[in-house]
């Protein structure tokens, strides 16, 4: 079910085009990875959801209506530029933001306690935010974004600066929220994380959506394929006669080929079989990072 829809967003900052007819959707329970090179317009698009940007054109709708302040209270936001009240204590801070989003004090307090212990911050709740490590501040920031159980979670680069353990933990938390029905939109440069975590991605470049859809479909839609094959005693000679194929690497009898054009699978198999005993033969589409590079023309 479609919940968030950005339609035809346009925004210039002087001569710089941040958004240029940018449109995409996020559905209920969907976790969408928002990708693009630096300066592609991701942050501007995310800010527009919270009314923090004066758009030149376009609309941002939630459940088919324009987003107003009351609706926005059901959203959670973690900006790219992290920020908390440095001298406020952790629990007090999370409770404050819960209440700003409409929760009663007791309700916010319960939710904050639970969230902080989920994030392994249970023992730090009385500390001032400025006394926490960078990683822990990031967790508090996440707690602030999630304390009111938002229906939409918008996270700008949530994985940046996290160690692998913390990143895995965050991925798990986000997946949990999405399973519970939250629509999650997050930007990231860590394409492996995105590929692992998201079913859907939106790729922007120069303010426009250049590719959007299921990761699997986008990978499959690429004309390029990789062939990993082990032909005992086959050498590399047989592969060089395949049209549009490039030998990417080889290690003994194990070859990795890139197929850039249409190919005949039966022909490929028989060529390999003629060269020697085929022990492994697997054809895979390019991974997300390659799809990304292709889409942004790098």
């Amino acid at each position, binding site marked *: 079910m479609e919940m968030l829809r950005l339609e035809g967003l346009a925004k210039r900052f002087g001569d710089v085009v941040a958004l240029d007819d940018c449109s995409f959707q996020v559905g209920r329970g969907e976790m969408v990875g928002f990708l693009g090179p630096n300066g592609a317009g991701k942050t501007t698009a995310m*800010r527009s959801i*919270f*009314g*923090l*940007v*004066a*758009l030149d054109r376009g609309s941002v709708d939630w459940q088919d209506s324009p987003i107003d*302040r*009351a609706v*926005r*209270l059901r*959203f959670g*936001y*973690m*900006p790219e*530029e*992290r*920020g*908390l*009240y*440095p*001298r*406020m204590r952790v629990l007090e801070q999370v409770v*404050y*933001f819960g*209440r*700003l*989003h*409409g929760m009663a004090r007791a309700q916010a307090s319960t939710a904050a306690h639970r969230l902080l212990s989920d994030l392994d911050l249970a023992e730090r709740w009385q500390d001032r935010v400025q006394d926490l490590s960078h990683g822990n501040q990031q967790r508090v*920031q996440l707690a*602030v*974004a999630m304390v009111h159980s938002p229906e939409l979670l918008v996270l700008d680069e949530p994985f940046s600066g996290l160690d692998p353990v913390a990143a895995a933990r965050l991925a798990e938390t986000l997946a949990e929220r999405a399973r519970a029905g939250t629509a999650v939109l997050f930007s990231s440069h860590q394409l492996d994380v995105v590929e692992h975590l998201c079913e859907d991605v939106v790729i922007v470049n120069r303010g426009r959506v250049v590719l959007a859809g299921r990761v699997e479909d986008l990978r499959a839609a690429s004309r390029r394929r990789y062939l990993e094959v082990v032909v005992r005693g086959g050498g590399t000679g047989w592969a060089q006669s395949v049209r549009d194929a490039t030998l990417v690497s080889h290690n003994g009898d194990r070859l990795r080929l890139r197929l850039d054009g249409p190919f005949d699978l039966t022909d490929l198999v028989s060529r390999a079989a003629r060269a020697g005993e085929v022990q492994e033969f697997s054809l895979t589409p390019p991974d997300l990072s390659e799809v990304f590079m292709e889409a942004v023309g790098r």
Partner: protein
Amino acid sequence: MNTWRTIRLVIGRDLRARRKAAATVTAITLILAVGGIVIAALVTEGRAAALSGEEADRVLASLGVIILFMALVTTGGVIAEGVVEEKRSRVVEVVLGAVAPRHLLMGKAAAIGLIGLAEVLLMVGAVIAAGLAVDAFPLPQATAGTLTAVVGWFLLGYAFYAAMYGAAGALVAPHENSGSATFPVTLVLIVGYFVGLSVRPSGNLLVLVLSLLPPTAPLTMPLRIAYGDASAWQVALSVVLTMVAAYGMIRLGARLYAGALMRGGRVSWRDAWRNAAHLG
């Protein structure tokens, strides 16, 4: 959600964040007041230095102008600094996800205004206590009017200046000190202060005009009232004008504040005005 609830929450946070600073200022004021009373009592050696009701009003009103000026400039500075802090810590982007910029500014201004009002009452109280301690002026005939005037003009002046100080704070680049941006606003107060202190009975036309016009009325009218120089219609007119102007300044200040808050670096007044069209 209820706007007032949001503003109350902001007020609560801003009050809590400043409770230590407020306590410190209160303590200093009390120490100075007690010290002043003791010194005054020693100097007069218990003799009554009684002033007539009229003289008492003038002394009180002059002190009132000083108190007003100091209170307006310091509370204004605290607002601007509070705004810069939220910009500097970059928490403002998260807050604005949930709170309209004008509500954030209103809450902050109300919280700091409450602290300012408490300080004004404390200082006025200290002046009266000092006067009583040395029997300098009679109570309550002479003082009641002046006291009301000082407190009333603080509220009016604060309403007029607070949003502008907030807007000035929002213009500042996060690493900068807020002083440079607030100076133009403070300058207007300084003009009012010197005019206010130089008011003499049957003052000239300039003083009359300045005491009616909003930017300077809060600091010039109290003395004219004390001198019995201002007629009822003049007082009423200056109060109404200041109230109307304060409303305009709050709208204007809130717009500039909203337009500047999400900008990095130093923002010009013009850019802030233009950029705010979509925010409310």
